[in-house]
């Protein structure tokens, strides 16, 4: 048995015989042609047949996978009509008297290398689209047979150098159980396609094509990113079991996608997602997120050479609010400074960046930056359910000052007759122990709290979690942390306010029963954790977790807390 390692591109397991897709490099010979017009006619015929192919693929993809996946073929059709591609090819045929195959090869190679040299990883990937289109025209010119993937009628795992969009679009997932390729990464077209087809895929193995022969038995592990070649019976049995469990779990998660998060004794909590860009919203909705619990706005400020304008920010906030269709969106105002630097905004180096000039501290001093962001948020507020949250609040004075600035900007906008929502909730991150301790007084003035556990833990334990020698002190389950969380939740509830959590802890399977028991209202995590968390919560009883949490608060160490949760047998 050989274990071939690659990149886990799409989750799941497959066990089947290999079908090896030899990369039939169509050979291109340079020939001189006498009659240029006839050669151009031959080229145009091949082009017409290619267009017909792609029209068919587009239709098929539209029916089976929907409009979004079919868009790629819309782009291929434009390339097949592109004057910048066709003009130079026909010129070459006519002026240089060369054959259509060679002219096509030369011109398309220019575009392929142009894409391969682009800075953006996304645009670099477009080289594969150009190759795909060029290969299609070439195979028609050469009358070469293209393997008809739609004709596969036995269960197989495809093994290939790489898979083009037109190849993956033909897959019938009843038979193509998964694939492994030599090249590619998590964002390759083939990887994205595998995830939407919900079949496992391992890409970037560098050697799977060389190692595997047609008919070899393969196990594809889309979790670890490995391909097992000719596994023994025991391994096959082990993977059959894993596969069954995974399928059962996935079926259960799928059922949970559009239902609210409810414990088995009927308590509802909100499962939200953390996002960094408007593009992340699609994944939130796909995973059944009930809200955006943390929209980090730093991306708007990064990778550029000046501060983003009010209009640019407005456009991004509006996009997120609209795409969430009225579901709550908690936007955290700018959290830069410390270790997060902007190239165009110089700050002096600090001895203790995590304890330094950052987030709200910076925004209150550089009010020009802060006010621009607040205006953009206020203007976007009418497009959805906006909640604004200030990071790194240490004192009530900071909150009051930030709130005053927000209200000043709101009044200015209203004076300009620009509509602003009247329902914007205003909250703070609780990540500094002083704020947790004083949460009963904060609770009278804010609309909500969101506990940022990553920082709250490191500030409470006085331990830098990037420093390996003290990282053992990063203890989410330490009873001191649990007591702080309880203090914040109780303080909020006493004033009728809600509490969320947006650190890694909120999606952690061990922490979830504890947080549920402490009365947390909203859990915000990475989108992919939502369905597993919802599944876990549906099996928990709020009453039992309340007793569990009460016991945990009396534990002396993090280890005792973990043992307690494990013994609960959930």
């Amino acid at each position, binding site marked *: 048995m050989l274990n071939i390692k690659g990149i886990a591109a799409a989750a799941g397991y497959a066990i089947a015989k290999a079908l090896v897709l030899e990369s039939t490099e169509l050979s291109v010979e340079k020939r001189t042609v006498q009659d240029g017009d006839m050669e151009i006619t031959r080229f145009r015929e091949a082009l017409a047949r290619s267009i017909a192919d792609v029209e068919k693929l587009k239709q098929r993809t539209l029916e089976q996978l929907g409009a979004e996946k079919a*868009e*790629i073929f*819309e*782009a291929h059709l*434009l*390339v097949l*009509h*592109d*004057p*910048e*591609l066709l003009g130079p090819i026909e010129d070459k045929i006519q002026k240089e008297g060369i054959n259509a195959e060679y002219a096509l090869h030369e011109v398309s190679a220019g*575009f392929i290398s*142009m*894409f391969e040299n*682009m*800075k*953006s990883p*996304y*645009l670099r990937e*477009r080289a594969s*689209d*150009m190759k795909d289109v060029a290969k299609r025209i070439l195979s028609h010119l050469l009358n070469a047979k293209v393997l008809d993937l739609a004709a596969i009628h036995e269960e197989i795992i495809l093994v290939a150098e790489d898979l083009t969009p037109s190849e993956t679009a033909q897959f019938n997932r009843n038979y193509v159980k998964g694939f492994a390729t030599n090249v590619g990464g998590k964002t390759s077209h083939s990887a994205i396609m595998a995830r939407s087809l919900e079949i496992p895929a391992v890409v970037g193995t560098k050697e799977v094509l060389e190692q595997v022969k047609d008919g070899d038995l393969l196990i594809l592990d889309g979790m670890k990113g490995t391909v097992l070649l000719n596994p023994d019976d025991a391994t096959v049995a082990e993977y059959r079991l894993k596969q069954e469990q995974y399928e059962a779990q996935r079926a259960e998660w799928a059922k949970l996608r559009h239902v609210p998060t409810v414990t088995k004794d009927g308590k509802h909590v909100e499962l939200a997602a953390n996002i960094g*860009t*408007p*593009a992340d919203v699609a994944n939130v909705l796909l995973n059944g997120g009930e809200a955006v619990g943390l929209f980090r706005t730093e*991306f708007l400020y990064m*990778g*550029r*050479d*000046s501060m*983003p*304008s009010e*209009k*640019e920010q407005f*456009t*991004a906030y509006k*996009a997120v609010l609209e795409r969430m269709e009225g579901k709550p969106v908690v936007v955290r105002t700018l959290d830069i400074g410390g270790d997060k630097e902007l190239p165009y905004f110089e700050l002096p180096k600090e001895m203790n960046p995590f304890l330094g000039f950052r987030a709200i501290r910076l925004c209150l001093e550089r009010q020009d930056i802060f006010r621009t962001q607040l205006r953009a948020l206020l203007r976007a507020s009418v497009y959805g359910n906006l909640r604004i949250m200030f990071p790194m609040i240490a004192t009530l004075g900071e909150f009051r000052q930030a709130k005053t600035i927000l209200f000043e900007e709101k009044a200015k906008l209203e004076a300009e007759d620009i509509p602003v929502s009247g329902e914007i909730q205003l909250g703070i991150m609780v990540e500094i122990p002083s704020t947790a301790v004083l949460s009963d007084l904060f609770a009278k003035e804010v609309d909500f709290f969101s506990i940022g556990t990553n920082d709250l833990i490191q500030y409470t334990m006085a331990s830098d979690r990037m420093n390996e020698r003290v990282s053992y002190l990063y203890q989410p389950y330490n009873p001191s942390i649990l007591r702080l969380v309880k203090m914040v939740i109780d303080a909020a509830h006493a004033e009728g306010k809600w509490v969320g959590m947006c650190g890694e802890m909120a999606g952690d399977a061990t922490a979830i029963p504890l947080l549920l028991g402490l009365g947390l209202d909203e859990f915000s995590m990475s989108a992919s954790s939502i369905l597993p968390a919802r599944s876990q919560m549906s099996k928990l009883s709020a009453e039992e977790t309340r007793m569990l949490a009460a016991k945990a608060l009396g534990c002396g160490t993090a280890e005792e807390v973990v043992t307690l949760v494990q013994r609960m047998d959930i």
Partner: protein
Amino acid sequence: MQKTYKITNEDGIHARPATALVNTASKFKSEVFAEANNRKVTMKSILGVLSFGLEPGDLVTFIAEGEDASEVLEALDEIFAKESLGIAHA
């Protein structure tokens, strides 16, 4: 007629919006061009539009020549807004 934009979308102009821009520009009678980094391409060419490799902060100008020039620019403007590609640049 012409109009200039500053790209703000983190992906620049990727294949889907480029497809929409080229399809839209081709619907009108006017000759439409795009200009960026001192290069000018016809808006009939998706490879031309993608060849700019536009990134956030880059400027791109659309130039329309013909009787329906203002309609073309308006239609392109709508795509820019809908896809959050960028903002008008004075």
